């Protein structure tokens, strides 16, 4: 017994000494530590959760922070213009029923994707916009990645900026959430990787020159410097899938909408930041 205690003491002593040595050595700051020095990031962290804003470079954050600098606002302007533009056989615009978007759409974007009892489906905001266009306005649906759809989605989500992500995953939404979770953890493609392999196991780690993020969805549609335009979250999913050499799904499919719900729940309580700017 005595021997055991001595052994343990020696072991603890040695490890304390080792820890002291490690602490004394000048340590280079990690990429994340450097980013956390920027006071601007504190609004984008809730507990362990961090939005893509934290993982972005300081220069990218500066572009996002100024609505006049942020190129995504070119698309927001398209959305704002279309909000009150009459379209379709019913002779209506969004504003005909919903009035001013800053009032009527406040908080709405933070709750999507949302289960609809009417359609018995989980709907992303884009699905809802097209459903309203087709059924209420008798207008043609917009293509998912069109400037009109990106603009309206960004404009509506902008009305929730700063509000916490708050999707429903219980009740009728549960099976969709579970399917999204399964997708997230399913290894796929020639590289045999699941979303979770990077974004749960290795966030804040450098993968070549890129800092892996937690893969949070709360800033989409986003202006991506790589795209030189605004793009949807589902477009980003396609890029990720192709990067692991997996067959992507189309934008707006059930698979990607379920995944979007799972991600929005992962981002629960983080502030909405559409339209964000990313690398």
């Amino acid at each position, binding site marked *: 017994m005595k021997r055991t205690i001595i052994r343990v003491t020696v072991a603890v002593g040695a490890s304390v000494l080792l820890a002291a040595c490690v602490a004394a050595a000048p340590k280079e700051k990690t990429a994340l530590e450097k980013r956390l020095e920027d006071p601007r990031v504190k609004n984008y962290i809730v507990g362990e959760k961090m939005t893509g804003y934290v993982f972005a470079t300081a220069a990218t954050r500066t572009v996002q922070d100024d609505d006049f600098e942020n190129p995504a606002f070119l698309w927001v302007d398209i959305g704002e213009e279309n909000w009150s533009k009459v379209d379709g056989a019913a002779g209506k615009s969004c504003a005909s029923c919903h009035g001013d978007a800053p009032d009527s759409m406040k908080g709405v974007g933070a709750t999507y994707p949302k289960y609809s009892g009417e359609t018995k489906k989980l709907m992303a905001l884009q699905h809802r916009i097209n459903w309203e266009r087709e059924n209420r306005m008798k207008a043609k649906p917009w293509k998912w990645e069109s400037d009109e759809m990106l603009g309206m989605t960004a404009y509506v989500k902008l009305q929730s900026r700063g509000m916490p992500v708050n999707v429903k995953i219980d009740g009728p939404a549960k099976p969709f959430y579970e399917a999204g979770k399964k997708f997230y953890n*399913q*290894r*796929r*493609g*020639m*590289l*045999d*990787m699941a979303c979770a*392999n*990077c974004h749960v*196991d*290795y966030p804040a*780690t*450098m*993968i*070549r*020159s890129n800092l*892996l993020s937690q893969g949070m969805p709360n800033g989409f549609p986003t202006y991506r410097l790589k795209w030189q335009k605004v793009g949807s979250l589902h477009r980003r999913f396609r890029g990720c*899938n*192709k990067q692991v*050499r*997996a*067959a992507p799904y189309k934008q707006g499919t059930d698979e990607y909408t379920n995944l979007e719900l799972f991600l929005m729940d992962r981002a629960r309580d983080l502030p909405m930041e559409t339209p964000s700017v990313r690398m």
Partner: protein
Amino acid sequence: MKYQLLIGAVLGAALTGAIAAGSANAVEYKIVEDTVPQSLTGKPGDPANGKKTAINRRKGNCLACHDMPIPEQADHGQVGPPLLGVGSRLSEAELRMRVIDSKVINPDTIMPAFYRSTGLHRVLKKWQGKTIVSAQEVEDIVAYLMTLKE
């Protein structure tokens, strides 16, 4: 023969000591206690080509995740362990297993299997039935890694 190779692939990789095969275009190999002692090709690996293949972003792309003693290349990843000295720490047979299919040793690893084309989900059409690197490239990479002594 082709059928046997295909059927053996997934099960074989999971069973230590069993004959495992990649795919119709992959050669057979035998796993012995989490190692692959035999060369896939019988031809000695070329370390210079192994280094090239390791750097190539469409092949090994090892630098995406590993720090390596290749100072002429910028931005080495941090996901996996640094590979300096890996040729001292691991044997050739152990390295060959890790390059072929690291998941035989650790099913939860993020590291892709570089010489397996079966048991995968929704592989893009143009990559279906193919392995990330060829049998000879596996040998070349292993030969290169063996030069990374401490």
